């Protein structure tokens, strides 16, 4: 079967790798001219769910990962500004660097099957087709990355991850493997992410990047407008424990993602199949977007492998 895959990120690479492995004739069309390594940051997935993904063989134990056996919950102490311990919750999480995951999947797709700078202009729609538009959920996720070596102290006080709660929002801070794929203390990256409520009318101004360009749904890492950063900082100043707020102030590499969601009514029609973000946009809670992207890819490959004909497989 000849397969054209539009989009060469996590779902695209995973689908391409599995279908190529199954003997199909695959081409990936990726509109970006360069590698996508800077598109994501940290991914925290429940370890049990991650082990399910590894069973399919796309990802093995060589993918660097940090582990968290528990998360420490803190809030800002009233009147003190210091962190107030709320409790520790036993949760086994696998903490990944998005760039490493992308590179791992990208390596599974031969270079001659992956076309950079190839934007698909049109996928022909039938009259009975539908449009599923993502709906803004009234909040953004502001994330930042810091090199652990630049912080100087153990920001998490010996823990692998903190969850931070504050009135009207919450966030997480945890370590992920560093750019050298190291999981050693001192060589990791520290990722922070905080949810902030932003009314729909104010969203466009939050999504203006540092070159005054209007972005539609997210501002990439390193492109956040200084005035937007300052505005978000002023909101978090009285919400975060002071030690965590200092990390936000120190960070020069952050991104903003408007939280949207949508789910297509059907993932297949004729010979067109949706996978990953093309089919459903999840809130980025617990790494569910990446898990869904990989699950979609493996489901498609399994359905086609067990079907007498392509149309039967897509109908499953």
């Amino acid at each position, binding site marked *: 079967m000849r397969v054209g895959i539009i989009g060469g990120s996590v779902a695209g690479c995973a689908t391409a790798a599995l279908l190529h492995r199954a003997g199909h004739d695959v081409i990936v069309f990726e509109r970006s001219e360069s590698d996508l390594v800077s598109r994501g940051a940290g991914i925290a997935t429940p370890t049990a769910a991650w082990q399910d993904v590894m069973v399919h063989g796309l990802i093995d134990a060589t993918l660097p990962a940090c582990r968290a056996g528990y998360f420490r*919950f803190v*809030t*800002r*102490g*009233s009147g003190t500004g210091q962190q*107030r*311990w*709320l*409790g*520790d*919750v*036993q*949760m086994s999480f696998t903490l990944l660097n998005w760039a490493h995951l992308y590179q791992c999947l990208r390596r599974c797709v031969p270079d001659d099957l992956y076309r950079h700078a190839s934007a698909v202009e049109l996928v022909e729609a039938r009259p009975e087709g539908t449009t599923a538009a993502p709906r803004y*959920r*009234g*909040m953004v996720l502001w994330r930042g990355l810091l090199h652990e070596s630049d912080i100087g102290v153990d920001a998490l006080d010996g823990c692998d991850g903190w969850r931070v*709660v*504050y*009135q*009207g*929002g*919450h966030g997480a801070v945890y370590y992920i493997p560093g750019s050298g794929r190291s999981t050693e203390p001192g060589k990791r990256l520290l990722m922070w992410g905080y*949810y902030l*409520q932003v009314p729909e009318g104010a969203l466009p101004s939050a999504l203006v990047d540092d070159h005054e360009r209007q972005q539609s749904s997210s501002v990439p890492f390193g492109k956040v407008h200084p005035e937007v950063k300052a505005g978000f900082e002023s909101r978090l100043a009285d919400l975060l424990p002071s030690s965590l707020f200092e990390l936000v102030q120190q960070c020069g590499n952050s991104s903003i993602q408007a*939280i949207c*969601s*949508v*789910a297509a009514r059907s993932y297949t029609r004729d010979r067109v199949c949706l996978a990953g973000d093309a089919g*459903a*946009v*999840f*809130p980025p*809670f617990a790494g*569910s977007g990446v898990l*869904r992207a990989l699950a979609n890819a493996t489901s498609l490959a399994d359905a086609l492998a067990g079907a007498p004909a392509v149309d039967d497989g897509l109908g499953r």
Partner: protein
Amino acid sequence: MMVSVAEQIEQSAVFDMPDLATMPIAATNDWMSAAHSGLMVTLPDV
């Protein structure tokens, strides 16, 4: 279905998050236990 559940969790965690900073320990312990039902939670002494 999964989108709906994930949405509800995420919406609630933002829009319904109480001001735990001003709560006494007994109240935050109740909130932590309810929010993480089924998980092992270590809480501060009251």
